[in-house]
């Protein structure tokens, strides 16, 4: 059945092949995206959505380029027409369309091989096109101007509040400090090493001997404790037998 191909036919075949692979890619992309939407809708975030859209639009673009390319014969000049319509299921077709189209019948063909929009849609498009054509240029420019004005106003408001906000944040930074490093150091030193909590003052120590009497009693039988070599120098002058001397 296969007659020797003309150059044009070869070109058509090659073009169609490229087209099919591109469309296939696009289809896979869309399928993956739908799958993502259905399964990961809870964790999906906006940036990754945008990524998906960008991918798809890229593929659409390359498809368009292919159609416009030099190698592509003018597809417009070719006619496809159904030779045989049948109600019987066609397994080959079913496999080809991944189960979407079971048979090439009268119901489907008009939709699939359509080259023009449906009449109602066409009507609507015409209606809108007419409306656009009928708009007065003056009113159009007026509306355009007012829109521009509103937009720029909005932009101003947003910018000014943004400035304010940033200023606020800046001011927070310059606010009086809520904590002091020196205090932290002092507190930590006091709590962990008892710095500035010990009583080096001998007059204080004299008072101390009273209330905690038991300690003195405990210590008296062991006079050796007071004579330990001094590690931290304190200004104690009142004698080495004192109970609170820091060795």
């Amino acid at each position, binding site marked *: 059945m296969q007659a020797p191909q003309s150059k044009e036919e070869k070109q058509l075949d090659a073009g169609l092949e490229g087209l099919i692979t591109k469309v296939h890619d696009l289809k896979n992309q869309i399928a993956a995206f739908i799958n993502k939407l259905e399964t990961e809708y809870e964790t999906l975030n906006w940036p990754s959505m945008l990524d998906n859209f960008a991918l798809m639009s890229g593929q659409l673009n390359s498809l368009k380029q292919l159609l416009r390319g030099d190698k592509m014969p003018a597809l417009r000049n070719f006619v496809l027409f159904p030779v045989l319509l049948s109600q019987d299921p066609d397994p080959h077709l079913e496999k080809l369309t991944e189960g979407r189209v079971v048979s090439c019948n009268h119901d489907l063909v008009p939709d699939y091989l359509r080259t023009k929009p449906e009449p109602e849609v066409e009507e609507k498009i015409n209606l809108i096109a007419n409306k656009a054509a009928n708009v007065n240029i003056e009113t159009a420019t007026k509306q355009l101007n007012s829109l521009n004005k509103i937009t720029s106003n909005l932009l101003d408001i947003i910018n000014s509040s943004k400035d304010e906000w940033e200023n606020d944040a800046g001011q927070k930074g310059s606010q009086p400090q809520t904590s002091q490093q020196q205090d932290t150091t002092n507190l930590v030193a006091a709590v962990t090493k008892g710095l500035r909590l010990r009583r080096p003052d001998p007059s204080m120590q004299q008072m101390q001997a009273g209330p905690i009497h038991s300690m003195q009693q405990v210590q008296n039988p*062991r006079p*050796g*404790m007071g004579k*330990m070599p001094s590690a931290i120098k304190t200004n104690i002058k009142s004698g080495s037998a004192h109970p609170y001397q820091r060795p």
Partner: protein
Amino acid sequence: MGVTCVYSYPVPDGKSGQAVVEILQRQIELLGALRSGHFCVDCDTFQSILQTSINVQPKTVYILHNSEQPASCFAITDTSLCLTADTLFDGLMHQLKNYYQQRKNAKMEAKGQRYELGDFILKVGSASLAGSFKGIIVEVEYCPCMVAVDCWGLMKELLQSVVGSVADQPPPILKNRQDELYSPSITVSQYLDIFNNFRKLSATNQIGR
């Protein structure tokens, strides 16, 4: 957690400790007491390795546990000051290992049968020093009463039906603190007193030999 008396019961010559314990147990069961598990009191000795001067005695701390208060730990100094703490205190003693060290082969234990009789808890067991038998311990606790001087008559009556004349007087530790509100630390102090007596006894025995 009531008034408790702890006695060491003498082992007569020619009888084994185990036999005497069994006699006491039978005696208690005859009173109608019911077995309710076992008891254990143990005592570790820690000694200071701090030599501040040569003529100072090293200090001693005893760490005791009583199965009647399983989540507590008792630390008693050689001046018989008793600190009650939770069982993490053992870990704290470990932190002090550069200052206080556990004396080897000095662990004393009292283990035996626990009985319940009405509001009384009776315990009979044997005391051991580093695993070797040292004597017999009898403990009687009267749970509802918190003041020793109040219930001594009552305790004595029960005690004498078990151990006879051994319980003519309250234990020395309890005698000094009869009027206080009773606390488990007094029980533990009594145990320590008995343990120390056993220790002294075995020490003199060894010297005697």
